[in-house]
């Protein structure tokens, strides 16, 4: 077993853009170097007390200065080395539901507006500078804060639009969730491309004209124009900059998914499959499982509106990561986590297509499967969505579930259930192996069944533990 000093130090693959410093990992420890480019601004933040004020309010990730011995590597060029606490679960903006991206956008703008009073400006507006602790956003890039120069422009405007505003508008104006597009293009959704799609009735609003249509047009013309007359840059007064930030913030505050759009989940809640006794039996079973397992991190696969995630947290789970493909369900789960201050991170993803490793050299953004280190899991009414809905063989799905966590609860829904009957209405039933007996056979190859409970005619809960 390597001692701490022997553990290799490696630079975090995504940390290469900023000349003010970079992020390194050694084992479980996170370090950030501050080079001579970023030292002056960092010293100002530290000595003025702004750094500790932001950290004690929980808006900025904590940091402490350490020596290069701690980093254990030749930290040439580093004036300071900071150590940050490790954040439990890292997620990316293309995995966030609409409500979470909106919360992150408003958080970034509010922080920027407050910091301008102290003459601090962010040097960028990357959505990857924000992480979530449960449903609470936190800013993680200390080096993005620097002193404001009178009259300067908001250099982060383009990046803010591409990584916050445009994805939100894609859903609010076009009814399309941002996740797939943003995942395919991790630098964000370009204003020029979005401008092609926004319906005219939204495009003609003053805010869209100012932040989408006009910049897209100016960019196009600006790229064609070869020469630029050389005169002194006209300063943008601070009040005007603040007004622009507040205007965007008020606009985003009012953005919501289209009301007329009902997702699959919205219909699901109207056709709930349980009587009150059945629901109570399910709650009791899951409570027993969680109280016994006491998970550090529980993965709720197919978390719906987060009700069982909340139940798990109330029964001793320290943290829950809820995953679901349905945008409506994810928004509801996020709102629940926000309002009740739950330690629940909500991820909007297709479970049959988790976000992969990508970016430069395929290393910048880590695969979701690698980031999700759960010690327990719930797969409630999930199996049939993957086996029947997506044609993935039952043994393959069970194997994957057993790899996600060593113990958990599976809720098996058999073919007599009205939900599955609806799924097979216009399809041939090519799933002869989809039954409880076969599930047991496959499960018991690698796990033992701790407890089983048939809560209804068509639904059975199975508590398993990997051998």
């Amino acid at each position, binding site marked *: 077993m390597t001692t701490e000093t022997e553990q290799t130090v490696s630079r975090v693959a995504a940390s290469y853009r900023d*000349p003010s410093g970079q992020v390194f990992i050694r084992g479980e420890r996170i370090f950030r170097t501050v080079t001579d480019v970023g030292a002056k601004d960092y010293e100002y933040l530290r000595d003025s007390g702004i750094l500790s004020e932001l950290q004690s309010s929980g808006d900025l990730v904590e940091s402490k200065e350490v020596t290069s011995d701690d980093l254990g590597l030749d930290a040439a060029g580093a004036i300071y080395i900071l150590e940050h606490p490790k954040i439990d679960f890292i997620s990316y903006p293309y995995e966030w539901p609409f409500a979470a991206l909106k919360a992150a956008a408003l958080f970034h703008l509010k922080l920027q507006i407050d910091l301008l009073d102290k003459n601090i400006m962010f040097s*960028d507006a990357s959505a990857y500078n924000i992480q979530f602790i449960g449903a609470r956003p936190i800013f993680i890039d200390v080096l993005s804060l620097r002193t404001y120069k009178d009259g*300067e422009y*908001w250099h*982060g*405007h*383009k990046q803010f639009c591409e990584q916050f505003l445009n994805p939100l508008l894609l859903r609010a104006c076009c009814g399309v969730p941002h996740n797939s597009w943003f995942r395919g293009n991790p630098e964000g959704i370009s204003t020029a491309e979005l401008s092609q799609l926004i319906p005219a009735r939204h495009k003609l609003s003053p805010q869209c004209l100012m932040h989408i249509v*006009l910049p897209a047009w*100016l960019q196009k013309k*600006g790229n064609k124009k070869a020469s630029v007359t050389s005169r002194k840059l006209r300063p943008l007064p601070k009040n005007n900059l603040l007004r622009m930030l507040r205007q965007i913030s008020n606009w985003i505050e009012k953005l919501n998914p289209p009301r007329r759009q009902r997702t699959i989940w919205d219909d699901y809640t109207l056709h709930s499959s349980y009587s009150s006794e059945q629901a109570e039996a399910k709650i009791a079973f899951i409570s027993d499982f969680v109280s016994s397992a006491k998970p550090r991190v529980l993965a709720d696969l197919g978390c719906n509106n987060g009700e069982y995630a909340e139940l798990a947290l109330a029964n001793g789970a320290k943290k829950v990561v809820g995953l679901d493909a349905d945008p409506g369900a994810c928004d509801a789960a996020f709102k629940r986590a926000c309002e009740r201050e739950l330690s629940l991170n909500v991820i909007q993803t297709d479970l049959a297509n988790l976000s992969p490793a990508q970016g430069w050299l395929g290393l910048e953004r880590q695969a979701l499967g690698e980031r999700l280190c759960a010690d327990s899991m719930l797969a409630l009414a999930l199996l049939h969505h993957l086996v029947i809905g997506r044609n993935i063989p039952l043994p393959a799905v069970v194997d994957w579930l057993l790899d996600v966590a060593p113990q958990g609860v599976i809720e098996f829904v058999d073919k007599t259930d009205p939900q599955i009957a609806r799924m097979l209405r216009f399809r041939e039933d090519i799933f002869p192996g989809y039954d409880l007996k076969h599930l047991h056979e496959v499960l018991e190859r690698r796990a033992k069944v701790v407890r089983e409970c048939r809560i209804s005619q068509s639904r059975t809960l199975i508590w398993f533990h990997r051998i």
Partner: protein
Amino acid sequence: MQGFARVIFIGSVVFLASIEPAFAYLDPGTGSMLLQGILAAFAATAGVVWTFWAKLKQFFQRMGPEDKHSRRSKR
């Protein structure tokens, strides 16, 4: 480029002029910088118009009947 569009574009290019050295790695984007150049120009123009308007108001207030009366009574 047609008349009005040409005015807007040239106006914004003139006001942006030499691109300011970036403070960090970020490419601020031509479109965003030109947009803010327009806002800065409006801010400056609004400032000039406001000052002119305030002076005009002051001028007409000085020429008002109450002022004429008070000047006569001071003599």
